[in-house]
């Protein structure tokens, strides 16, 4: 799922030395367009779909779609990262929505239960 950044949302992480997506990408693929000052994936075919950039984007500007060669259009998978969990919204190609809340870190509440 090569990441696509929405130009109306991406602000290039102004104030950061480099945008967060560029900072975290394990493949060194996210980079800033020198003219528009917005982030993009320099080589979509090289992306492993780990979604690290999508989760890291502070403005939820990066969207995940599947490569058309392997799946029908349209469809989206949106992670919303919380403190101890991530909420995933999957919208399939017919517009059906599914939501999943997945734990990501042990939270103080868990420790109380123990």
């Amino acid at each position, binding site marked *: *799922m090569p990441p696509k950044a929405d130009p109306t949302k991406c602000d290039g992480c102004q104030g950061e030395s480099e945008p967060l997506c560029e900072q975290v990408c*394990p493949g060194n693929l996210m980079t800033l367009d020198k003219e528009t000052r917005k982030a993009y994936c320099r080589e979509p075919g090289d992306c492993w779909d780990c979604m690290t950039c999508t989760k890291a984007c502070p403005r939820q500007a990066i969207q995940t779609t599947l490569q058309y060669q392997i799946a*029908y259009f349209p469809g989206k998978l949106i992670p919303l990262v919380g403190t101890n969990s*991530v909420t995933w919204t999957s919208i399939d190609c017919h517009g*059906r929505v599914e939501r999943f809340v997945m734990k*990501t870190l*042990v939270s103080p509440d868990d420790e109380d239960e123990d």
Partner: protein
Amino acid sequence: MAERVYIDADVLILGGGTAGCMAAWEARRTGGEDLKIVIVEKAFIRHSGCLSAGMNALNMYINQGKPEDYVSYARYDMCGAPIREDIMLSVANEVNDTVKIMEESGLPMKKKEDGRYLNRGKWNIEINGSLLKPITAAKAIEARAEIYNRVYITDLIVKDDACIGAVGFGVRDGKFYICRGKVTMLCAGGAAGLWRPNNHGDAHHRIWYFPFNAGSSYAMCKRAGAEMTTFEVRFVPVRTKDTYSPTGTLSIGMGAPMVNSLGQAFMKEDPHYVQWGGHTAPTPIRAYGFQRETIAHRGPVFMDTTKGDPAKVTGIKGQYLDMSPSLVLYWGCNDIDPSKEPVEIDGGDPNIVGAHAGMAGAWTRGTSRETTVGRLYVSGDALGGAPSRFISGSWTCGRITGRSMAQALKANSYDYADLEPALVDALEERTFGPLNNYLGRAKEGLWTDGTLMSGISPKQMEDRMQKIMEEYCGGRTRWYFISEPYLNIARRHIKRMRNDQLQYLCARDLHDLQLAWDVINRLDVCQLVVEHISFRKETRFPGYVLRTDYPEADPDYDCFINSKWDPETDEVVCFKVPYEQIVPGDRRKETI
């Protein structure tokens, strides 16, 4: 000349992944407060490497029985082949402690009502592991390791048969990094991308293994003169079609067997597979089952999820979101409901790994993790002969390596070696070679599309290499079949690329320089793979390498195949190394 950065470390760790982070943590525990620990990482340590997408289970955990039983399982899963039982046992002895440490560090474990970890199968436990990498990296930070992100290490420095450091370039700053270590640990992952991937274009990297692990661990060890082992055992993933997501989640979570297009659960029903162990046959045999059924025109092959409990589908999707989120969307955008129709599976491009169901890597002395090059240690996928360590075993193996290094520093009076300026200059020239090559060759002219008239890009070279390996070294489209006449062609081309064609390799920027080094390293690994497969004149791992000229296992090859590279002749010299059985019992059976 590039700006230079000099780094000295008591413990120099190359690769901030599963093994490297835990090595730093354990080295601090053993070596004390004053130890200077440095990690050099080519990406950003909190999100780099194999763990970047997360993981939904830990596949090495002693749920039952003894550590010896796990060693027996790992041996069985490699078709009873020789494995380093000493190394496996050392990992199995400590793996449960490591998991406890990670739970205490914030990793959410799934638990049963009695408070024990929720197991999935015999040796696996379920986790919510989407933040596995940040949690792992936090252990290195806790250990106060000095971390250098975005530095790509290109070569080790060896003097008098000992490793004294490494050099590399800053992926962002373009500086030349010169690192000296009293001891050095190389743990930069395995090798993906030697063969052609199934998907192309914008899905080119929709593959099983982490595509940015380009074999630098193996290539640098090889070039440093280390003894290497088992490069003939390549891992062939049989996974969900197109996304290459794991199938264990389905087979165990939904009770789904592999079935062919006739609906036959062939692993369980066909005596040909039952003799190997049926549906729990060794990993290479399950890959072979998929291949044989498809070649016999009984494909496509599926995981039959339709007999399972439909209520479990939501839970299964959640598990995939923790490690392979694209599959959930793939189902959604291909109208697939796994409770109503079986999930198609496919074979992917082979990978060279040391810690999954493969065992390539550097040979190590006893359980020290020190290679045959002094003061050079390996762990994780870089360590050879010890399969099925997976994540929890690689954490553990990293800890053992960290401890071993700290102990070696106490026991010996290692010091920093002096680096001759001429050597450093030569290493710098080599490191930035493809970049300078571009500048030189750009003067000779560019085509109207901006490409070089007299140079080759890293991508072009990768394509050429993958085509050779695909067609002459048993790629997916050749059904993994290999024989000597094909290998001879592969050998000739890989040699030609390494010796004659690298002079044309050009990198137009620092990202390209990273890709250029990836292909240089991959070509070195290709050489190891071709020579090892050629030397093992038998078929011991049918789903991984099917030698059509030697289709059966041969007792003469019931041993390790090791090798050493001769820089003078550029030959990889292979030789046999005996196997030592430590855990008694029938090697083709599990003890429990």
